[in-house]
């Protein structure tokens, strides 16, 4: 299963993905965890320093093409190799970061090959968990084409819930077929979470309370792999279980 965590910027996608990675690590599930946000927050949340990013892979691939190696099969196996070099492994978890593009120019073929490689890699794991870039861009560009489930995250603001609905609409139009559900993050209580989601047509998976333990981990940049069980982790794991990513 490939699950992408999507939503408006600042709603807590990275924290939710990090807690999901912690649960997968603890369960011993072979998982690919992808930081698809160029800001790279998930690597920080998990205290990982990737040796190489997908953007580095893309640059190396472009260099291959510029050096005259344009054969599609050679490029495809090269991507496999370079992506393997970019994986940071921690026991049963393999981590991949998208990195920050610094160059301009269209390399559509390179990007398509890269996307195909990531899609193929994801299927070699029991599950793949992706922390998507904020907003609709990656869904719109079909970067999430192989995703089976879109976990839409909002806080209790109406704006964040609307963005989640928009992402679902775009995903339905651009990709289609995958499941989706809304997780309301950082609610003061169940009543506030219910009020935030009462008018949405989205399937509501649950809510996550504001939690000082999570806040202190964020503030101190401690690895979320070391996060103790807390109300927020319980809420997140319950939603990920309903989505089918983890078993509780």
């Amino acid at each position: 299963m490939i699950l992408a965590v999507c939503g408006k910027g600042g709603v807590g996608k990275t924290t939710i993905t990090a807690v999901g990675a912690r649960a997968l690590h603890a369960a011993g599930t072979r998982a690919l965890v992808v930081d698809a946000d160029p800001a790279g927050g998930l690597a920080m949340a998990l205290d990982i320093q990737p040796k190489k990013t997908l953007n580095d892979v893309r640059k190396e691939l472009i260099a291959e093409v510029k050096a005259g190696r344009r054969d599609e099969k050679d490029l495809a196996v090269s991507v496999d190799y370079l992506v393997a070099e970019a994986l940071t492994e921690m026991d049963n978890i393999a981590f991949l970061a998208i990195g920050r593009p610094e160059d301009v120019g269209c390399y559509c073929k390179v990007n398509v090959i890269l996307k195909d490689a990531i899609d193929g890699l994801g299927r070699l794991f029991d599950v793949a968990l992706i922390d998507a870039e904020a907003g609709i861009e990656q869904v719109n560009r079909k970067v999430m084409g192989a995703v089976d489930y879109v976990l839409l995250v909002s806080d209790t603001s109406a704006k964040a819930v609307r963005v989640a609905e928009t992402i679902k609409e775009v995903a339905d139009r651009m990709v289609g077929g995958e499941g989706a559900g809304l997780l309301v993050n950082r609610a003061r209580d169940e009543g506030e979470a219910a009020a935030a989601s009462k008018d949405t047509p989205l399937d509501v998976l649950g809510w996550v309370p504001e939690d000082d333990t999570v806040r202190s981990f964020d503030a101190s940049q401690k690895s979320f792999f070391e996060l103790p069980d807390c109300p927020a982790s319980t809420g997140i794991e319950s939603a990920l279980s309903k989505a089918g990513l983890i078993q509780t």
Partner: protein
Amino acid sequence: MGLFDEQLIEIRRLMSGMRDEEGLREFDALSREPWPLGRSLVLEEDTGLELGNPRIASLSTLLWTEDGDVADGRVTLAGPDIGEAQENSLPFGQVLIVRGEFANEYDYYRDVRDAVYDTHLEGFSVRTMPSRQTIWCRASTDAVGSGLSLADLGAAFIEALKSVPGVSAAEAFFVTSSASDVARLSPAATGAQRLVDAMMKMYQEQNFDCETCEYADVCDTVMDLKKIRKKLADDKAV
């Protein structure tokens, strides 16, 4: 004369030298029970043995001949096999040699190359980087425990190569004995890659301006490349 004559002579010379120096083992791939095929991704925690980590030594090359000697179905090994390694990582050199008859070198190359790329053994993940001529493999702990050997890997490659139309014989040569032994294969592999790159460029770009081409030196010295260039230039003129 063939495209890789020089490289084949060099590989045979090396094999002969290694046979005298440290001994080589030979296996008959054609009589082996095939190892199950399937694409795997072996994580570090599941790895029983790593082969060809580029930080240690890694090399892969594929050579073909139309009329040279190829020991059909033979897998030759210099160094420890997968189940015999004393360390958890070994240097790795892989040389695959094919004999066949072909009308078009480019199509033939792509067919035999794809047969290699598309061969995956269960519990054994392979990554190759053609431009660096490297191959980086991991055998899972389960696969090592179940007796996976380089003879199984060679047998799978040989079977895949022999399924390509026109191929009449295939053999595999693996080196795990030392990083320096793998490095001894490097001149032949680098030379072969230059020839392949030159051929690919000719077919893909159809540009025969030899004044500016970075492969002019290899084309000028290798008879088969000259023939390919002339044939393509003539075809283009028509």
